[in-house]
């Protein structure tokens, strides 16, 4: 069975209006740039996007927001995006804010076949409203459900033709979790090698979780907060 796709536009086949999709990345770090561009080109709309952030005005998921392709964002932090704010305040866009660890763990739960998890994050806050609270060892936890996503779109550093993935540095972030969580998982990689060339001990996402893979192109890898030693001498 061939998992290798030619490019992003063929790999996103089947993502239709109204789909629930996960997108890996933290800020603009480790985002699936090629698939986002292909989704923008495809014109698909009414999407529910599960992603830690919503990109910036002219990059990342921000590009999809500009085209009004997103109906709902499920994120932990959505700042740094004027168009996002405009759509939100005008009621065009729905947002569900979720603590970052809860977001990550709800992805993992889906990939691990666990229907729900317990976390203390949000206890005593508005995040807990309407949620089941349970006490273990004297501490309160919220019951949070595994995500149910049609597609997961992730970006890895290296991948092989069997779908095994390796991430680089903090570009790993949510990618391995979402890779496990999609009914269909699409991976774009900087380097695509034949099966057998990656060290089996170094695989972060085993190929069983990955249904489609392609070699991405022209990675821009925009930096959101460029900080260098010249700016602040010690840290």
């Amino acid at each position, binding site marked *: 069975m061939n998992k290798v796709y030619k490019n992003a536009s063929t790999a996103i086949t089947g993502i239709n209006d109204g789909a629930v999709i996960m997108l890996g990345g933290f800020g603009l770090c480790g985002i699936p740039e090629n698939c986002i561009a292909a989704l923008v080109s495809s014109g698909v709309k009414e999407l529910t996007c599960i992603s830690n952030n919503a990109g910036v005005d002219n990059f990342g998921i921000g590009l999809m927001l500009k085209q009004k392709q997103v109906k709902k964002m499920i994120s932990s932090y959505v*700042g740094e995006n004027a168009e996002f704010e405009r759509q939100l305040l005008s009621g065009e866009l729905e947002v569900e*804010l979720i603590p970052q660890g809860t977001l990550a763990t709800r992805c993992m739960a889906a990939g691990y076949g666990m229907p729900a998890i317990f976390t203390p*994050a949000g206890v005593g806050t508005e995040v807990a409203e309407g949620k089941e609270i349970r006490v273990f060892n004297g501490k309160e936890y919220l019951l949070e459900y595994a995500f149910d996503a049609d597609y997961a779109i992730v970006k890895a550093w290296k991948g092989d033709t069997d779908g095994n993935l390796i991430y680089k540095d903090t570009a790993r972030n949510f990618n391995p979790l979402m890779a496990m969580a999609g009914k269909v998982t699409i991976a774009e990689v900087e380097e695509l090698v034949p099966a057998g060339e990656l060290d089996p001990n170094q695989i972060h996402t085993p190929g069983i979780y990955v249904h489609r893979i392609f070699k991405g192109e022209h990675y821009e890898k925009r930096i959101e907060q460029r900080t260098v030693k010249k700016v602040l001498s010690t840290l």
Partner: protein
Amino acid sequence: MLRFGGDNGMALSKEQIAQRIAQELKDGYYVNLGIGIPTLVANYIPAGINVVLQSENGLLGMGPFPFEGKEDPDLINAGKQTITTVPGSAFFDSAMSFGMIRAGKVDLTVLGAMEVSEQGDIANWKIPGKMVKGMGGAMDLVASAKNIIVAMMHVNPKGESKLLPQCSLPLTGKRCVKKIVTELAVVEVTENGFKLLERAPGVTVKEIVEKTAGKLIVEGDIKEMQF
């Protein structure tokens, strides 16, 4: 190294708040530093103390900012700033990152706040009527960390105390803050309310009492902070 300054005359500068918090570090600590003043704590780690900085986007062993031209877009901290790593670092996914936070493996968490209540409740993510950007990892951190120190100004720009009987803003977490370091004082959160531990050099107990809206326990002689 005693430096006076900051907006409030004899009060501490932001750097000095960070420097005072750095005195709380112990050798071998794993530490998560939030955005703003907390980030500055890394500049004042005492000699002979080794701490490992955790960045909740998936890194243990965060190092200084890179030299210009050495920025790597794949290597950022939770504030999305370009960073470096130190020897012995490790990368992991966001689930493991918050897993170790929930499991209490992070010894100290330092973060900013808009309000702290005398029960240790914290509000730092949402202002009604303003665009809500989200809680990021703050709710996970405050719900799980063993030891949370808040770094903030004692009063807000309007001059209102940020140490309150009850938080007026939506909470980030309940009964979690252990200590507060402001430009005026070091305050512990006890079962009976705030307790004044130290005052900034030259700052009077009276000023601190006036600027603390929540119940503040003042027992005996309150020492000046030492730097």
